[in-house]
């Protein structure tokens, strides 16, 4: 069953890729969608199996590589964390597959597109089911390649190619850290297999390691290196520049890869490695601060963008920031919870945006939209649902997950945690603001597109809308439904729908009185839902503390959300035009935000141009002038000079030779005398 859930997408990819021509577009769409449907169905069954029967398992498939004491297997590790991820990946991916049938209907390479989507899904599944760091790296790079292929799918466009290459290379910079992280893990733990590492982590908590001439805390080193990798894939500040550019890909790709799944790989990695991160408090602090800064900076950029997909892209980045600072304060459950709800509502938003773009004849600039809500009402409603969930308005999915993250951050009672909380609050305000800015600019006001386009505005075909409706269901209910099992501690603060978590609930009630006394021992298993897959040290248990924070802490995010919507309404509906004036008044700040804090320009001058300059210098100066100039070519020229010089010595005059002989004799005699010790 595990094999079915992971390998059917691969089968779909192979069939569609190799025999795409023979089976035609219809056939390719059928095999890939059928494969994904099977995988999605099986993964739900698997989820119930693993989570509710508390039956995590690992299936060894084959040996990958052995060298000395280094040995790695291909394996499928399906524990609670992996089961959740498999479900999210397969369900969202299945929706995107079906949606693509409609969205890509006019493209000439449909078979190829569908096969890439399946390839991506397979790689992501290998990533989440890995039982060692190296297979994780395989999936990690696999999704990177699939993303490269899909961003550059319209490969006749320069911008798409540039974005694809940029995505791959920026990700590789992250992989640089990840690869070193894997190596350091092997050197320090003696294994890259998760169970072996987790077992040893507590005893290595005090160990130091020599790294580049400095003695550093071993586990912190591993965690920070892995975190660099996570930053690359999850577009955290510093390595985020590829994500907005990745919007060059077709919209279903943005939904699947750059919102719901691939970018969450970093979050998954940190959660997966929680038993190690728990012993590296400094690394956790770094994660918190980077996450908080990302959430804030991305939101500020999101305020000013005009491309509908870029706005959503920056909101993705910002939400990833939330997930990271949740991880940083040890609220791993909350991070995964937000990952899941976010997957639904962000995929919904992207696909909704895709539906708008589809309707507007491939227009993406919001300045050329407006006034279309009556023409595409279903999309409009769905976008509202997605935005409500994103802004964290009560009872939508995002409300539960975002609130618990902010509460955990506050409850951490650390400097970093508090910083993250306030950054998160600011970002929440901005999130709501730009989400409704997007809705108002896109759907309301006077139409700004030309008549030709407006005449064509049409609702998307049912195959697209039905996928959206499934996602919308998730965006509405996923939060309430899974709040209890995913994050509720021993004292449930919120009332959630408890249909699914019923069994766990009963267990918990039985255990409840004991918990206080055996706090320390029980804490590992307190979240019956996660089993052993997430590990939190007792003193880091922010999720439990999150339920005891002051009331204002809990209410503030919601208030900010509502305020943001209100502000957007004032600026873009009530007094349209004020926004431009504000932008003009706050000139430098607006420019900073609009130009994405100048990260791209900075990297361009700092790295890209210098790499080329140095490369040219090495090529022309180093190789041609110095090495060849003094090496082979130089020696060749020199020997020619010497040879012709010697040739000139052969003058043919007797007295020249006689003089040379005398001089030589004199020289030899002198040398003998000197040697004799005069």
């Amino acid at each position, binding site marked *: 069953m595990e094999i079915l859930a992971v390998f059917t997408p691969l089968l779909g990819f192979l069939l569609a890729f190799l025999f795409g021509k023979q089976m035609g577009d219809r056939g390719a769409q059928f095999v890939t969608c059928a494969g994904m449907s099977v995988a999605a169905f099986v993964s739900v069954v698997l989820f119930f199996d693993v989570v509710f029967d508390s039956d995590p398992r690992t299936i060894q498939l084959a040996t*990958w590589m052995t060298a*000395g004491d280094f040995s790695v297997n291909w394996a499928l590790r399906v524990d609670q964390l992996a089961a959740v991820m498999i479900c999210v990946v397969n369900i969202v991916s299945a929706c995107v597959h079906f949606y693509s049938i409609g969205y890509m209907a006019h493209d000439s390479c449909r078979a190829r597109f569908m096969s890439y989507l399946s390839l991506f899904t397979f790689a992501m599944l290998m990533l989440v089911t890995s039982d060692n760091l190296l297979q994780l790296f395989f999936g990690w790079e696999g999704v990177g390649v699939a993303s490269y292929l899909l961003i550059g799918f319209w490969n*006749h466009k320069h911008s798409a190619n540039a974005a694809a*290459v940029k995505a791959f290379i920026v990700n590789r910079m992250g992989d640089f850290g990840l690869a*070193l992280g894997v190596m350091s893990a092997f050197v320090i733990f003696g294994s890259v297999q998760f169970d072996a590492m987790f077992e040893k982590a507590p005893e290595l908590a005090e160990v130091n390691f020599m790294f580049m001439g400095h003695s550093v805390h071993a586990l912190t080193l591993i965690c920070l290196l892995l975190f660099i990798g996570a930053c690359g894939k999850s577009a955290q500040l510093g390595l985020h520049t590829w994500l907005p550019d990745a919007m060059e890909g077709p919209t279903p790709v943005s939904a699947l890869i750059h919102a719901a799944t691939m970018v969450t790989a970093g979050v998954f990695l940190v959660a997966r490695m929680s038993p190690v991160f728990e012993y590296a408090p400094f690394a956790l602090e770094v994660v918190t601060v980077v996450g908080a800064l990302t959430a804030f900076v991305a939101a500020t950029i999101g305020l000013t963008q005009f491309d509908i997909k870029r706005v959503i892209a920056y909101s993705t980045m910002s939400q990833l920031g939330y997930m990271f600072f949740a991880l940083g304060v040890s609220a791993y459950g909350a991070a995964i919870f937000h990952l899941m709800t976010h997957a639904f509502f962000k995929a919904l938003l992207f696909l909704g945006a895709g539906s708008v773009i589809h309707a507007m004849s491939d227009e993406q600039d919001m300045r050329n939209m407006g006034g279309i809500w009556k023409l595409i009402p279903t999309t409009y409603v769905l976008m509202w649902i997605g935005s409500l969930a994103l802004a964290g308005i009560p009872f939508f999915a995002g409300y539960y997950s975002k609130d618990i993250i902010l509460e955990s951050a506050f409850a951490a009672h650390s400097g970093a945690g508090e910083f993250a909380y306030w950054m998160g609050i600011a970002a929440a305000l901005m999130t709501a603001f730009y989400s409704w800015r997007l809705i108002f600019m896109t759907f309301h006001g006077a139409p700004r597109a030309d008549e030709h386009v407006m005449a064509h505005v049409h609702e998307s075909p049912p195959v697209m809308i039905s996928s959206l409706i499934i996602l919308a269901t998730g965006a509405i209910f996923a939060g309430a439904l899974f709040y209890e099992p995913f994050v509720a501690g021993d004292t449930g603060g919120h009332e959630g729908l408890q249909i699914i978590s019923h069994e766990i609930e009963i267990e918990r009630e039985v255990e409840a009185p004991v918990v206080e006394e055996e706090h320390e021992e029980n804490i590992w298993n307190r979240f019956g839902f996660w089993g052993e897959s997430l590990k939190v040290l007792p003193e880091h248990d922010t999720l439990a503390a999150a339920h005891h924070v002051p009331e204002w802490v809990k209410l503030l995010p919601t208030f900010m959300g509502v305020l943001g919507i209100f502000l957007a309404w004032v600026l873009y509906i009530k007094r349209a035009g004020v926004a431009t004036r504000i932008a003009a008044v706050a000139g430098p700040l607006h420019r900073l935000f609009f130009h994405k804090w100048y990260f791209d320009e900075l990297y361009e001058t700092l790295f890209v141009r210098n790499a080329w300059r*140095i490369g040219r210098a090495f*090529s022309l100066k180093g190789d041609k002038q110095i090495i060849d100039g003094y090496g082979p070519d130089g020696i060749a020229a020199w020997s020619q000079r010497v040879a012709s010089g010697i040739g000139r010595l052969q003058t043919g005059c007797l007295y020249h030779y006689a003089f040379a002989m005398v001089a030589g004799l004199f020289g030899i005699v002198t040398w003998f005398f000197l040697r004799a010790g005069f």
Partner: protein
Amino acid sequence: MIGFPILSLMTFLPLVGALFIFSIRGDAALVARNARFSALYASGFTFLLSLFALSRFNKAEAEFQFVEKTDWFPALGISYHLGVDGISIFFIVLSAFLTPLCILASWESIKDRVKEYMIAFLVLETFMIGTFCALDTVLFYVFFEGVLIPMFIIIGVWGGPRRVYSAFKFFLYTLFGSVLMLLALLTLYFKAGTTDIAVLLENPVARDLQMWLWLAFFASFAVKMPMWPVHTWLPDAHVEAPTAGSVILAGVLLKMGGYGFLRFSLPMLPEASAYFAGMVYWLSIIAIIYTSLVALVQDDMKKLIAYSSVAHMGFVTLGIFTATAQGVQGGVFQMISHGIISGALFLCVGVVYDRLHTRDIGRYGGLVKNMPKYATVFMIFMLGSVGLPGTSGFVGEFLSLLGAFKVNALYAALSTTGIVLGAAYMLVLYRRVVFGPQDNGDAAAMPDIGMREAAIFAPLVLLVLVLGVFPNYVMDRVSPSAERMLALYNKANGIAAVEPAAGDDEGGIFP
């Protein structure tokens, strides 16, 4: 054991083929046709023999297998001694595998002097296989040097416009190293009184002498590898060589340097190897970073791939001299994988060169439209070269780096930048050639790969993927011999077994 001398057969079968072709007379077109087929049969049968040898190779055995030994110059104690172990067997298979592919790749592109061309290739194959089989230093030297002659001719006769310059540069560069190696081999002979490699392995010479010998060997192998800064012959040689010449050059000839390090430097001169390891690390690191940056700015496809080869060989030398199980096996695997991938990449360049007769990257673009199959094949090798997990390129690279990390994290960190730069130059190359708008009419009109070309690429694609997922087929066979070599190395350096990295300069755990 097999009942017949399989190594001699493999070594000299191509030579027999060459002699046969030499005897073909008659109408020019017919001679060319016969020469092609004879060469294909001879090299193809050699490949089958090598597969047979591989299937009979005992993977649990660390010692030399299929050994053949006869007196050659009994008075001097020089014998004809062949044998293979886990380190050499795959190089033999690789040589035997690439040669028929090269002959197929030259099927249509070589039109002049086909007969001589095929003879040169078969002679080259004899020397290559002989180099990896030889267990006598004199025999080894003969084969090792012999390789130069057909390669020199292939570049010098069938090469591009600057072929004479390149051929001489290649020849003199490598000869310079070889002369020093000859001195080293003679010294070894006079000191140890034997030319038998198997005996020399067990009896290391005095430490002081090791230093000189090591440097002499190093001069030869470093040029062959090539290591920075003696790499400048490689781009020129590649650029001017015909496609098949480049394939063999990158696929097999470069590996002779690495093989030499593994066969001579590390086990015979262990103390000197440990002493000079630091220098090798730094040269390797410079090679990886420097040549990757140079590759980035190239406009010539072949030059770009040539520079990438230098960077990839940097991982090999880095891994080998860590003297860790991971590093050495990673180095061997990296060489085999690079032999396949870079060979394939040169074939990819050859495909478009045959059609448009230019290597200028700017003259291509948008090939994915008119050559989709080619684009797919090229993509797989490009990703293999980038070191994507799941392709063979990853395994060797990662294990070498892992070995380096055990010795010193700094070396690993610096070398790992290679994976970023490697991605950069390969993706830029791919993007400029295969993606983008079709600006050049003649490039847009090129036909996709045909049956013959597909037949060449199919096994290469398969190998890159299969070895990436199941590298252990190779690893299992390499590891006993590698461990045996490391045991000799560690014994000489007084390092306790199992943990070779523990005592090194930096690294290791302490509370």
